[in-house]
C-alpha cells in the first residue's frame, strides 16, 4: 500500500476492514504493547540458559520440564517462531507507521503561511503586538537587526497591500525527518542482522605456528573454503605475575597465489579483516612435537635418554622395549584433584605382552616412580607446537547494522534536541499613524523552551526606540 492512497478517507463498506487492519498496524497502542511484550519475553532467555547441550538441561530440570521447554523453543528462544513473529510484527508496525505519517511530515515541511492571518494567529504562541512612535522604515531598519536572532537563514519577505511587510523565519525544518530516520534505522538494523545470518558465517580455525590454512569450520559444522590462505607466523601469550592473562597476539600473513599480501599482528580487540573476512584472536593452545625422556634406575642413576617424536615408536636404551609419546595434557588432574600441570602420555611396548600406557608429569619428575619396577621415566624436555585459535567471521550485513545504529542515534538526538521553529513578524502603519509590529511563532516540539526564547526577543523588540 502506498502512502499516496488515501486509505483513511475510503468510506465505502467494502474497504472498511482494510481500514481497520491499517489502523491496527499504525496504532501507538500496538507499539507500546509490542515493545513491552518483547521486553517481557526477553527475560525468559536470561533466566533459562540458552543453546546448551540437552544433557545439561537434564541436570537442572525434570525430564518433563525439559521436553516442554524444548517444545516451546525456550532453549533457543531468541530464534523461536514466536519471538521472531513479535519482531516481524514490530517491523510491520514501523513500516506501516512510517507510511502513515509520510504525508503529514512532508506537509509540515512546506512553507504554507508566510503571513499572519486570522486563522494562523489562533495557533501561534507568544502572539504580541508592539506599537512604536517611529516611522515605519526606521522601525524596520532597527528591528531587522534584532528579529530573527537565532535564525540563521534569510527570512521570506512578503509585501502587503496596505504597505506593510511580513517576515517569515524558520529553522530546523529538516528535524521533522527525525521520525523517518529513527524508525527506518531500526528496519535497517533488522535487515543487516537478517542478511548477516543468511549470507555470512561464523567459523573457527586453529593454526599452528608456521602453518597455513585455507579453510575454516563454521559453527553449523560446514567446511568453508577461503579465497586466500592464512599463515600464523608466531603466537605469543603474556601473563601478569599473578597469572592473569595480559596479552595474546598472533602474527598473521595473508597469502594469495603463494605471495604475502598483508601481514599483521592481531590481538584481542584488534582483529584483521581481508576481503570481508575477519580474523579475531580467540584462544590458543599447544600440541607436543617431541619429548626427551630420561630412563632412570630406581637408585637415581641415569640409564639413557629417549628422544620420542609424537606418534612414532623408538627403542628404549638398556631394554628391548619400545616407547611412543602418544598423548598430551595441558592440565593433568592429580588424584587429589589438584592441577598437575603439563603431562605426556606414553605407551610402552614390551617385547612380550600387551602395551602399557602411563602419564609422565613435566613438573613432577619423580611421579612415575610410584609405578614400581626397576626403572622409571621422567620428562627432560618437551617441545610444544603452539597454535593460535581464531574466530573467523564473514558478515555482509554488519555494515547495515552500523549504518542503522548511527542513524538511530542521530534520529533520536534530533527528535529530542531539535525542533522545527517558525517565527512571523508583520510590520504596518496603523490607523493612528503609529508603526505596529506583530510577532508570533510556533515550534513542533519543546514549546516551553521556544516560548522562553521568544520572550527574550519580544523584550528586546519592545526596547527599540
Amino acid at each position, binding site marked *: 500500500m502506498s502512502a499516496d492512497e488515501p486509505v483513511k478517507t475510503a468510506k465505502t463498506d467494502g474497504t472498511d476492514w482494510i481500514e481497520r487492519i491499517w489502523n491496527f498496524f499504525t496504532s501507538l497502542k500496538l507499539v507500546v504493547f509490542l515493545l513491552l511484550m518483547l521486553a517481557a519475553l526477553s527475560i525468559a532467555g536470561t533466566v533459562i540458559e540458552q543453546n546448551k547441550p540437552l544433557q545439561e538441561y537434564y541436570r537442572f530440570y525434570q525430564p518433563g520440564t525439559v521436553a516442554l521447554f524444548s517444545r516451546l523453543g525456550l532453549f533457543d528462544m531468541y530464534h523461536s517462531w514466536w519471538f521472531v513473529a513479535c519482531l516481524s510484527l514490530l517491523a510491520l508496525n514501523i513500516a506501516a507507521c512510517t507510511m502513515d505519517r509520510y504525508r503529514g511530515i512532508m506537509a509540515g515541511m512546506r512553507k504554507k503561511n508566510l503571513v499572519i492571518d486570522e486563522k494562523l494567529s489562533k495557533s501561534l504562541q507568544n502572539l504580541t503586538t508592539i506599537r512604536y512612535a517611529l516611522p515605519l522604515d526606521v522601525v524596520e531598519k532597527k528591528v531587522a537587526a534584532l528579529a530573527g536572532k537565532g535564525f540563521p537563514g534569510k527570512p521570506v519577505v512578503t509585501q502587503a497591500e496596505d504597505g506593510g511587510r511580513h517576515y517569515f523565519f524558520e529553522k530546523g525544518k529538516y528535524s521533522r525527518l527525525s521520525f523517518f530516520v529513527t524508525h527506518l534505522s531500526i528496519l535497517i538494523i533488522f535487515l543487516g542482522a537478517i542478511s548477516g545470518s543468511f549470507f555470512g558465517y561464523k567459523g573457527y580455525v586453529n593454526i599452528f605456528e608456521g602453518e597455513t590454512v585455507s579453510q575454516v569450520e563454521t559453527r553449523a559444522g560446514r567446511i568453508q573454503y577461503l579465497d586466500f590462505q592464512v599463515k600464523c607466523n608466531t603466537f605469543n601469550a603474556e601473563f601478569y605475575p599473578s597469572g592473569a592473562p595480559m596479552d595474546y597476539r598472533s602474527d598473521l600473513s595473508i597469502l594469495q597465489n603463494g605471495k604475502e599480501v598483508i601481514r599483521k599482528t592481531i590481538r584481542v580487540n584488534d582483529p584483521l579483516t581481508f576481503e570481508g573476512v575477519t580474523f579475531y584472536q580467540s584462544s590458543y593452545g599447544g600440541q607436543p612435537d617431541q619429548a626427551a625422556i630420561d630412563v632412570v634406575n630406581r637408585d637415581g642413576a641415569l640409564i639413557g635418554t629417549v628422544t620420542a617424536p609424537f606418534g612414532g615408536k623408538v627403542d628404549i636404551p638398556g631394554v628391548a622395549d619400545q616407547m611412543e609419546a602418544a598423548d598430551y595434557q595441558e592440565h593433568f588432574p592429580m588424584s587429589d584433584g589438584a592441577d598437575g600441570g603439563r603431562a605426556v602420555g606414553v605407551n610402552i611396548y614390551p617385547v612380550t605382552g600387551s602395551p602399557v600406557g602411563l602419564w609422565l608429569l613435566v613438573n613432577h619428575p619423580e611421579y612415575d616412580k610410584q609405578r614400581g619396577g626397576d626403572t622409571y621415566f621422567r620428562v627432560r624436555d618437551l617441545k610444544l607446537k603452539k597454535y593460535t585459535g581464531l574466530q573467523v567471521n564473514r558478515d555482509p550485513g554488519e555494515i547495515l*547494522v552500523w549504518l542503522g545504529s548511527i542513524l538511530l542515534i542521530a534520529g533520536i538526538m534530533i527528535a*529530542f534536541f531539535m525542533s522545527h521553529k517558525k517565527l512571523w513578524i508583520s510590520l504596518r502603519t496603523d490607523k493612528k499613524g503609529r508603526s505596529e509590529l506583530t510577532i508570533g511563532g510556533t515550534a513542533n516540539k519543546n514549546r516551553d523552551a521556544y516560548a522562553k526564547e521568544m520572550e527574550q526577543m519580544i523584550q528586546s523588540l519592545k526596547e527599540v526606540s
Partner: protein
Amino acid sequence: MTNSLLFGISIFVYFFAMVLYVSYLAFRSEMLGKAASLSMLGGVVVETAALGMRWYESYQLGIGRAPLTNLYESLAFFAWTIALIYLVLERKFKIRTVGAFVAPFPFLIMAYASLNPNDIQPLVPALKSNWLIAHVVTCFVGYAAFAVSFGVSFLYLLKAGSEKRSPKSAGSFWDFLPSSSALDEIGYKTIAIGFPLLTIGIVTGAFWANVAWGTYWSWDPKETWSLIVWLIYAAYLHARITRGWRGKRAAILSIAGFAATIFCYLGVNLILSGLHSYGGAS
C-alpha cells in the same frame, strides 16, 4: 592508598546529603535545601578526587587504566554519575524536593561498593579497549538520568494522589512539591536525556563486542537486559504520545524502567551469574 580514604570520606558526605535532603522535604526550610545541595556537591567533589586519585595510582602501580573496570570501580562511578547528573538536573529543572528520593542512591551504592575488594588489578586483554570508556560512561550517565526520572516519577505518584484527595491545600506539605503536571513533564525530559545515552551505550557495547569477539549481539543476559531497559523506555516514550497515557501510567513505566536498569546493572551479575558461568563487571 589515598583513593580508598577519599572514597571512604565520600560515603559519609553522601550520607549527610541524604539526611539533609530528607530533612528539607520534612521541614521545608530553604536553608536545609541549600545545605543539602551543597553537601551533595561536596560528595561529588570528594569522589571526583577519589576517582582521579585511583586513576593516578594505577599509573604509579605501572598498570595505568581508567577506574571503570571491576565491580568496585563501576559502583563508585555509578554513584558519582548519579550524584553529578542529579545536581545538574536539579539546577536545570528546579526539583530539589526530588533529592530525598535520589540522594539515597549514591550513599547506598557507595556503602555497598565498600564491601567489595578494591585493589587495583591489571586488565585482561578483552578489557583493553578505548571502547570501554565510551561504553561505560554513556551507559552510566543514561542510568543516572533514569535514576532522577525514577525519583521524579515517585514524587509524581505521591503528588497526583494528594491532588485527587484534596485539590486545594495551600501552605501544606503537598503544596510545597512541584505540580503534578510539572513533575510529569520533568519525568519525560529526564528520560529524553537518558534514552539517547543508553542507545549510544548499547551501540558502543555492540561495536566493542564485535571488535573483541566477532559478534555484535549474542543475547547474553547483560546485553539482553540492557535491551529490556531500552524497550521499556521506548514504550514509555510512545505511551506518552498517546493521550491518556501521561501521568500515572507513564510514571509507573518510568519506575519499572529504573527497576529494570538496576537489575541490568546489579541483578544480572549477582543473581543470574549464580546460575551462569559469565558475569563479571562491565
